């Protein structure tokens, strides 16, 4: 099974859903419409493509692009054919609710909680969407780019030269 084969199979099944495709460092990367992401992953899991192992879910924040501000990245794997696939779905900050994958993969539970904890991305239908690594009373989602690493109230340190 090759990347071209997978791309063609997905394009055939969901001609409308794939917005963009590329192959950075050999891994097929597809940008999928946010509404269709669960449909696509479900198909990938049950069809003969057999992407039945969810490696990872994580979020990325692009504050400069308001239309595509938040991104959820899914890494899937077909263990038999030994091929990996990366799916991305972008959303705006206001409308950041994805469908949960917990009914497809039991392991998605904590991965989605972590994504929610770090980026505030909600997952519709998640059985227990609470923050996981940070303290529950933190009150914000610290991986968003507007939160600086250092305490924002500090004035004694000027970090213009180092770091972002």
């Amino acid at each position, binding site marked *: 099974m090759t990347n071209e084969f997978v791309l063609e199979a997905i394009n055939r099944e969901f001609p409308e859903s794939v917005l963009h495709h590329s192959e*950075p*460092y050999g*891994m097929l*990367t597809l940008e999928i419409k946010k509404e269709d992401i669960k449909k696509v992953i479900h198909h990938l899991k049950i069809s003969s493509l057999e992407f*039945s*192992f*969810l*490696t*990872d879910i*994580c979020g*990325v*924040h692009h504050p400069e692009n308001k239309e595509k501000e938040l991104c959820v*990245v899914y*890494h899937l794997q077909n*263990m038999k054919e*030994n091929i*990996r696939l*990366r799916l991305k779905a972008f959303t705006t900050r206001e409308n950041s609710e994805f469908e949960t994958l917990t009914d497809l*993969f*039991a*392991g998605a*539970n*904590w*991965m989605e909680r*972590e994504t929610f904890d*770090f980026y505030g991305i909600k997952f519709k239908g998640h059985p227990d969407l609470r923050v*996981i*690594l*940070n*303290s529950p009373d933190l009150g914000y989602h*610290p*991986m968003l780019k507007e939160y600086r*690493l250092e305490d924002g109230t500090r004035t004694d340190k000027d970090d213009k030269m*180092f*770091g*972002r």
Partner: protein
Amino acid sequence: MKDNALSNIINQYEAEEQIDGQLYTLNLGPTHPATHGIFENVLTMDGERILHSEQTVGYIHRAFEKISERRNFAQITTLTDRMNYCSAPINNFGWHMTVEKLIGCEVPKRVDYMRVIMMELARIGDHMICNGVTAMDAGAITGLTWLFRERETIYEMYEQICGARMTTNMGRIGGFERDFSPKFHELIQNFLKNFPKIWSQFCTLNERNRIFMDRTINAGSISAERALSYGFTGPNLRATGVDYDVRVANPYSSYNDFDFIIPIGTSGDTYDRFMVRQQEVWESLKIIEQAYKNLPEGDFHADIPKFYLPEKADVYNKMEALIYHFKIVMGETEVPKGEVYHAVEGGNGELGFYLVSDGGRSPYRLHFRRPCFIYYQAYPEMIKGAMISDAIVTMCSMNVIAGELDA
């Protein structure tokens, strides 16, 4: 193990019916001598049976992913050793290989082999601790104290490479900071000579020990299907019978040069996890022997002056070296834009690095796929209906490392 009476109680509990007798809540952790780290488990118990359990993680969350968005690539190595601190060199090299993949750097064969030797030593150290502690929690403390002497030898070898013992910060992007020293050669030759004897003593102590077998067989078992659904990797997945190993599936660092097998179990219980690790130590030893015997001649680092710090003497005498030294230390080297996922077989599963680079001095986004964060969520399912003592050995044999869990 789950008899009818018990499944009735669990069904009643799940239907929120009144259960005869009294249920009580027990806090196992956050700090408990048997959990070996900070794990909070709130157990709902009926007698000594666990009906329900809830885990809270994040007690030692140190925001590595956020910190790494401000550090340059070389400085992130020190964050990675604080994840799975039982096998820190694997994390270090995994990160270095991710950066090398991003910048398109080919390392010399000698570096690959040196890395393989160090990674397999780390794996032996990791499995030794995990299995020693599993045996200890089942009541056999002798094995662990034996193994600590051997772990000391492994740490002495780390010292020869990088000067540190536990949080190693070993290697550099592109290779190693120095070659194997004569003392290291002496240590590893002694290790290869003496370790098999010590390890077979540990094997005979536990593997067919009736008490140990009774304690661990059928304790905390999980099917292959559920394990895959939960995202298990590493020895825990192999104990259920799935022969997935990143070293074989996606060979990195010349692992395809070596001859070794992937041990697998059948039932995914504590005993199988223990036995898979026992066998993996023998396989790791085989790999080290092959790599050490065939250690190629050559340079111990790649020729990438933009990333690899020059010799200190050159910095004082050569302009080029001074420029690169300054640029590296100030984090001014240019990296390509792009995104890369690189996975290595860590001590307890597939350790993945998802790196998004925007060409800046630090990663735009770095996500660690931490194996035990992902498989620890199966723990409540694995101990449901079990005794407390089963829950303890199950947790040990899963090899959940608090530092990696909370990142």
